[in-house]
């Protein structure tokens, strides 16, 4: 059974078909990149997957279970966790409390949550800022924190929305390192990004969207050489 199964998902806003019949599967242990020019519908798709928007039609199965009509908190509990493009942390709570909240909400008890949070703080090199309000952390640290919140209880799949956007190169490396490490341990990822070098480096398989549809879904190397993809990024009409 695949981890995440997306079938014929459609979403329109007025006359705009933001997501127009998207289907693909993600197997356990995969690290998939999702690319596409601006406006291709990637973020809308992600919003549908994480429960922030209902699809007009189609379905999404997580581990065989339909999640497309569930609320975000239910989807999170079911094991799909998401990072946002514009980092969202609980600004007036300490970094440590941010992690605790995520852990408790996902079902860990007090002791487990504290232990896991301590572990993650170490791993994310946030020890020095552990007790500072999250709003006082640097942008990169906040990203790491948000990343950590997704891993208080290893999710079935982690959706990362532009995790490398506007991030310091060193931080990028740290983040990429975490992704690699967790992936090696079997964690499933779906990463939306514009950062081609990182996608090439991390993701064996890439899905490319344009104007709401999937126009390529194959090995990353192949996707990047696919003329259809190149045309989508550089302009011109997509061949029917």
């Amino acid at each position: 059974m695949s981890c995440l199964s997306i079938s014929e998902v459609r979403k329109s806003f007025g006359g705009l078909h933001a997501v127009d019949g998207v289907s693909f599967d993600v197997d356990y242990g995969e690290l998939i990149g999702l690319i596409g020019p601006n406006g291709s519908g990637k973020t809308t798709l992600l919003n549908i997957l994480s429960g922030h928007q209902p699809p007009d039609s189609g379905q999404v199965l997580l581990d065989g279970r339909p999640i497309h009509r569930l609320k975000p908190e239910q989807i999170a509990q079911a094991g799909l966790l998401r990072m946002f493009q514009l980092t969202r942390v609980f600004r007036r709570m300490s970094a440590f409390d941010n992690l605790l909240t995520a852990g408790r909400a996902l079902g860990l008890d007090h002791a487990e949550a504290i232990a896991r949070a301590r572990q993650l703080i170490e791993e994310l090199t946030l020890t020095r800022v552990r007790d500072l309000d999250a709003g006082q952390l640097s942008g990169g640290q906040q990203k790491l924190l948000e990343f950590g919140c997704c891993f208080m209880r290893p999710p079935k799949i982690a959706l990362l929305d532009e995790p490398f956007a506007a991030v310091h190169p060193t931080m990028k490396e740290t983040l990429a390192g975490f992704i690699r490490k967790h992936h090696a341990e079997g964690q499933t990822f779906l990463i939306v990004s514009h950062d081609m070098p990182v996608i090439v480096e991390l993701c064996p398989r890439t899905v490319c969207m344009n104007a709401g549809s999937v126009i390529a879904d194959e090995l990353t190397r192949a996707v990047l050489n696919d003329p259809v993809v190149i045309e989508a990024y550089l302009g011109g009409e997509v061949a029917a």
Partner: protein
Amino acid sequence: MKTDRNAVEFRLSLALLALVALIPAAVSNPYWLGVIIVSMYFALLAAGWNLLAGYTGQFSMAPACFAMIGAYASGLLSYHWNVSPWIGLPAAIIVSAAIGMVLGRIVMRLRGPYLALTTLSFAEIMRLVIGNSYSFTRGDLGLNVPGLFDSRLVYYYVFVGVLVAVQTGLFLLLRTKAGLYLRAIRDDEIAAASRGVDVVFWKTAAFTMSTAMSGLAGALYGGFSQLVSPELGLIAQTGLVICMVVIGGIGSLIGPLLGAFLVYASSEALREVGGVQLIVFSFLVIVFARFYREGLWGLAKRAFMRKPA
């Protein structure tokens, strides 16, 4: 860790309340005892509103309204059906909590000014309805209700006891995951949901707890003053509560208490000087809101506490 901060605030609130408990040893003037009792009434309202607004981020304009509802719940039971105020008190809590739960569930999706406007309308509607239902509530004339106790002093200590219980309850609550969830909802509701927090449940819970506290305060106050009127639910009363919390320090355990005592007691003291108290307080609220959100408690913290980095 944040629980340390809560612990400090909690201990200080207990100290403050201990001080308040000692006052009757030095002051026997019933007028001034009454002033402190009313301050404690406001402190209860302030603590409830602070839970909802300061800790959960829902700025409701209805705390005074629910005090009025609680007072009338108990008062009407006694006025029409001779129900003892001992039963009226828990009834007031239950009625306020129930209505609060429904209202909270209804306004779930609203934020900021929308939430404020809706709760404001609700409060005004309730006040108008109660004020106009002359045959049932005696309208603007108010209801005369019996008290639980005859002695002012006993009421004084009942209020102190209730405040201690409420503060303890809040402290314990905030130490649990509830404390984490409420603040998470306040800081970023969408992120909270994405991490798995049941936002609907906790927002409703905060609303219900807050209105229950207001209802309790109202019923107690009604018994003390032996008169229940729609004036309890005036928007200006809510305004006073908000002033108290902002001045005292919103989002802290001790801020509402500090604010309530300071604002009300000094307003009574200033009454001698001339009715400038509300001018001063609303001005202070503006200054604090504009420049120093943490209020008086925040200032006190800076001045007296040296926290290790």
